[in-house]
């Protein structure tokens, strides 16, 4: 089998001066939706001090964030960082970018087909949107850059259950379209419904990795690490 599509190898990641990941190895294959449980922040904007991050064989660690984005990583931050004084449409326009191989299948028309709710509020200021709508907009905005991998940082955080469900539906739609997704989440039920694979991190180390079906039936792991 070829090398995994997104490959994190022996990564030590620090948040400020405290180490939050210890020699983590992670592999995501094309088309997978990988849930990362028990870990607050993915690549985020904090590069590892040691180790490698490769996307399609290309080394990314230590490069400026715009180069990481251009290499095909689509980062969707936590806290829904929309540009609040831009309209919905302008949020998307700012993010227009071709993919790493020049592909541009994600454009505004396509976004509005997949996110019909955003189409109804194109001209509204993004800061006036509800939390769930802002979360959809941040995902849509990142898709405008035609990424190879979508990194979702806690998309369900701080949203009402019914909205979380809508976001889940949306991520499932993207998954079924073949988008490769790495999802960092605390909410296990949310992950079980949408991911194809799962990795559980505890105290900065990987303690479990398998398909989502396996996790669903593994009560020991669920009880021990995920406090179900």
């Amino acid at each position: 089998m070829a090398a995994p599509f997104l490959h994190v190898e022996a990564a030590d990641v620090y948040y400020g001066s405290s180490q939050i990941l210890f020699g983590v190895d992670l592999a995501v294959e094309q088309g997978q939706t990988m849930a990362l449980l028990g870990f607050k922040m993915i690549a985020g904007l904090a590069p590892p001090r040691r180790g490698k991050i490769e996307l399609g064989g290309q080394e990314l660690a230590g490069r400026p964030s715009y180069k990481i984005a251009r290499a095909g990583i689509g980062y969707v931050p936590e806290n829904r960082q929309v540009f609040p004084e831009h309209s919905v449409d302008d949020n998307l326009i700012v993010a227009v970018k071709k993919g790493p191989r020049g592909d541009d299948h994600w454009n505004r028309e396509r976004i509005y087909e997949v996110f019909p709710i955003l189409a109804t509020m194109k001209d509204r200021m993004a800061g006036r949107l509800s939390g769930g709508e802002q979360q959809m907009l941040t995902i849509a905005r990142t898709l405008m850059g035609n990424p190879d991998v979508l990194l979702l940082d806690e998309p369900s955080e701080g949203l009402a259950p019914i909205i979380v469900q809508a976001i889940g539906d949306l991520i499932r739609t993207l998954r079924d379209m073949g988008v490769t997704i790495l999802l960092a989440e605390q909410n296990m039920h949310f992950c079980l419904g949408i991911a194809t694979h799962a990795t559980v991190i505890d105290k900065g180390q990987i303690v479990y990795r398998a398909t989502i079906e396996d996790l669903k039936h593994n009560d020991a792991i669920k009880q021990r690490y995920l406090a179900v």
Partner: protein
Amino acid sequence: MNLEALFSCLSSSACAVTQVSTALIIGMLLFMVASGLSLIFGVLGVINFAHGAFYMAGAYIAFFTYQATSSFLAAFLAGAAGVGLIGVIFERFVISKVYGKDILMQLLVCYAVILIFDDLVKMVAGPEYKMMGMPEVFALPPLELAGGFVPAYYVFMIGASLVIGLGLWLAIEKTRMGKIVRALAINPQMVGALGINTTLLYAAVFGIGSALAGVAGALAAPTRTLTPGMGLSILIESFIVTVIGGMGSIVGALIAALLIGFTRAFGAIGFPLFVDGMMFGMMAIVLIIKPSGLLGREVTR
């Protein structure tokens, strides 16, 4: 105080026209300088205290280019482009080193640049006053308007500033690049994560803001005497303009610059000793009533 003279000027259309045209050229020059200052502050969050020195550089570059080519168009373009380039170099090699540092550090660095520029001008052009003179293309009869006369160059200056200001506003509000720049002002990390080279964009915005000071210097050159240190008074006035209009607002800068222009032009007749006091007084009133300026956005972060 000589309010009688002020009223008699206002009641004579010839005097009023002359003073209004004076007010407009003072205002539009200030608008060019202040909008550059405001753009740089709005996007990069730094106050470019060297902006007045850039204005002076624009005037001198235009002066020397005109001496060499006798073409005002060449002088104007050289002033704008030359100062734009100076701005990019200054941003990359000087001011970017003190981003996020104490404002006193930024002030000190800019003050050093001001002193260097003033001395460079003394070395290159000499300490004495220089006069560029009216370019030949504008050796036209003045425009007669309701009994008053407005020099053709004034009409050009006002028109050119308006066109540049409108172009700037359209670029920021309507183009994709402008939308990116506005996003950069609010959340640079996010803009970078979307694949945009923010370092390059910061330098470009600084260059455009500086070029506006260069434009003002080049436009002012035919009407003002050029001296080393000529940037200081316009720097102070553009601070007043940005405080009154609101940092980061182009329209606010225009309104405030015209307010200062009219205060200066009519104050010179009615209360010549209190013009500066009046300008600072207006600034103080705005600061008390609306600290973010007339059209400035409230700081939300």
